Every structure is written in structure tokens, then in C-alpha cells.
């Protein structure tokens, strides 16, 4: 029997340069518990190095962490990529690292990229230009995600910066996204009226949290049996009685 579970499908950690230093994997889990969210997708920019710690920190809390990445495509569009487990996320990360623009992160200009374990201990600093873009076009990212059994969701499509529709003016034909995320300033009915073609896709909303208190400020309400990746996929496809509950 499906029940209502709140999901935040787009959350950053201190690994993302623009995110708060205090937003450790453990802090993400604690915030989710505090706000009553059952499912959280951790998606740092072009990296998944803090996802395993988040998954471990969530054990026994009742919160499910879905490991992911927010990938910057060659068109500078952001795509959320979510995976069933760390293996998928890790392989996607390897692909991203191979195609990420070269260069070292400038901590003063962009922020620090901190790798932290589930005990809030710093393990290291990521030197890559995670704020940069990969050379992977959108279609290639989506295809790779699906090859790895993951889900591809276009981030904040309506946003001018790094949004799919913002950058391309439309959702390209034949793009096999699993969902589109609209920004917090928008709601699904307005989005459907404003962007022809968007009704083909399930619409989700998330916090895009870069600070601990932003987690869960906006969520996607799911009707699922339990907070798992597979249930999420069923809900996005509206299969077997699972779905997204639009308020």
C-alpha cells in the first residue's frame, strides 16, 4: 500500500564549492531527519565523493540517501543523475572526471571542495574544477546514466543559468529524461502552461540545498511503498500505483 513520502532529490554537500562548509554528509542526514524527509538525493557538482559517507551516516535513521551527481554538460546545462548504489555513481563519476575541463579549483574564488566521512572527519580536498563543465553533450550524459541503470533529471529547467530550457530555449526532441526539475520559484501548472513539451515529463521540485537549513525547503511528494531508488523510479513512471502527488 503506497504511502506519502517526502523526497528532496537535489541536495549538495560541502564538496560542492558553492555549498556551506558545515554541510557535511552527516549534516545532510541530520537535517533530513529533523525535517521529516524520507529520501534524499545527494548531488554535488561533477562528483560523488561524499555520497558513500552520506549513505553510511544514514544507516538506522530511516532516511534513504540516493547517491548522485549534478553534472554540467558541454552546453553548460545541469543534469541530476541518480543511482541505485555507489557503484553506479562511482562509474558515472569516473566518466565525468575523464571529461571534465582541466584546471585546478581556485578555493578563494569558487570555494572549498571538502571530502568528509560519516563521522564529520575531513578526509581531503578535491582539487578538480568541479565548477567547470564536462565535454559531454546532454544526450551523452542521459545515455550514460541509463546505461548504468540510473535516473536523469534536468535541474531547474526554467532557470536562465544552467537550466535546460533557459539555455536551449526548449527541451530537445528525443531527449529521454526521467523527469524535469523546476526551480522553487515555479509550480507545475505554471510550468506546463509556459513551456510546451514539458508535459511529456514528470515534474519534480527540490531544495537545491547549499546550506543545512535549506534541506527540505522544497520537496517532491511521492506515493510509494518505501523510500528506495526502485520505488522512486516507479513513481516517476507512474507505475504499479506509485506516483508523484502534486499539491
Amino acid at each position, binding site marked *: 500500500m503506497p504511502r506519502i513520502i517526502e523526497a528532496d532529490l537535489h541536495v549538495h554537500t*560541502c564538496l560542492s564549492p558553492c555549498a556551506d*562548509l*558545515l*554541510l*557535511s554528509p*552527516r*549534516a*545532510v*542526514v*541530520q*537535517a533530513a531527519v*529533523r525535517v521529516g524527509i524520507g529520501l534524499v538525493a545527494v548531488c554535488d557538482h561533477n562528483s560523488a565523493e561524499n555520497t558513500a559517507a552520506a549513505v553510511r551516516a544514514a544507516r538506522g535513521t530511516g532516511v534513504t540517501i540516493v547517491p548522485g551527481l549534478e553534472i554540467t554538460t558541454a552546453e553548460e546545462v545541469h543534469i541530476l543523475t541518480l543511482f541505485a548504489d555507489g557503484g553506479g555513481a562511482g562509474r558515472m563519476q569516473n566518466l565525468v572526471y575523464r571529461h571534465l575541463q582541466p584546471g585546478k579549483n581556485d*578555493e*578563494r574564488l569558487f570555494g*572549498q571542495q*571538502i571530502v568528509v566521512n560519516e*563521522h*564529520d*572527519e*575531513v*578526509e*581531503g*580536498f578535491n582539487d578538480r574544477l568541479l565548477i567547470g563543465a564536462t565535454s559531454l553533450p546532454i544526450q551523452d550524459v542521459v545515455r550514460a546514466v541509463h546505461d548504468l541503470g540510473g535516473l536523469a533529471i534536468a535541474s531547474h529547467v526554467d532557470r536562465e543559468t544552467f537550466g535546460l530550457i533557459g539555455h536551449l530555449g526548449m527541451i530537445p526532441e528525443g531527449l529521454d529524461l526521467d523527469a524535469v526539475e523546476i526551480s522553487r520559484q515555479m509550480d507545475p501548472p505554471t510550468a506546463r502552461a509556459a513551456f510546451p513539451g514539458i508535459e511529456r515529463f514528470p515534474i519534480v521540485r527540490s531544495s537545491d540545498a547549499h546550506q*543545512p537549513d535549506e534541506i527540505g525547503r522544497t520537496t517532491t511528494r511521492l506515493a510509494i511503498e518505501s523510500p528506495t531508488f526502485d520505488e522512486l523510479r516507479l513513481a516517476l513512471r507512474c507505475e504499479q500505483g506509485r506516483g508523484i502527488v502534486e499539491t
Partner: protein
Amino acid sequence: MPDNVYRELFKVEGRNFQAAGEVSSKIRRILKEIGLSADVVRRTAIVSYEAEMNCVMYASRGEFRFVVTPDYVILSIEDEGPGIEDTQLAMQQGYSTAPDEYREMGFGAGMGLPNMKKNSDEFRLSSVPGQGTKVESVIRVTAEEDDEDDTKRSG
């Protein structure tokens, strides 16, 4: 460098979360410029960062003395603050005197002291409750070609 030693003093302001992490960032950059191995840079950065976050979270101010010799990197951090009542207890993973507001934010599970010790070759913690805390960390510098060997040795 005169007599092959690099020295610098950094100041940290307590509760200044805007600037938190800046000193460690500078230290990392300096170590890379000097050309130390990735392992030494990473370990020093971790010790420095954990110490800096402690200063910002718990102290009113702190001083980082940073010395690089051909054989060692030495970090000596002294803060003015509440200090630690029981340093033995503080060295246990997860022990925290973090005020509620920090606990709620999450990143206050511990003071990172065991992590600092783990990443140091020598580590000393001393504190006078009501006055402040001092942390000293020594990290041995290895030649770049010895990176792999060093990892195997230290496990």
C-alpha cells in the same frame, strides 16, 4: 629561502564563518608552491582545517604558527577560548562539547581531534579550561618519489 625554513603566522577570528577555512587554504597553496608531496599537503590541510574550524566554532581567536623545514611541517595552533576540561575524553571520536546550535547544523559531531592526530606523525594537545587550547602537529616531509613507500609504511 634563508636557512631553508619557511615561517608564517596566521590569525583566525572566532565565529567568523565567512572566513572559515581561508587559513588552511593559504597553507595548502604554500605547501604546493614549495613542492611537497600530495600526501603531506593533504594531511597538513586536514589538520589545519579541523583546527581552524574548531577555532571558529569554539574560540574567540586563534593563532596558527606554520613552519616548514626540509624535514618537517609543524603546525602550532593556540586559541583563546573556553578550553577543554578533559583532553582524554576529547580525543575520543565523536566526543563533542559543541553547543546545541552547532549540533543542529550537524558539523559538530566531534572536534576532529582524533582525525588531526591520525594525520600527524606527532601530535600534542594541551588545554587550560577557561583560557584556551593548544594543538601541535608535526608531519614528516618525504621526497616526492617516496610517496608510495611512505603510504605503505604508515598504512
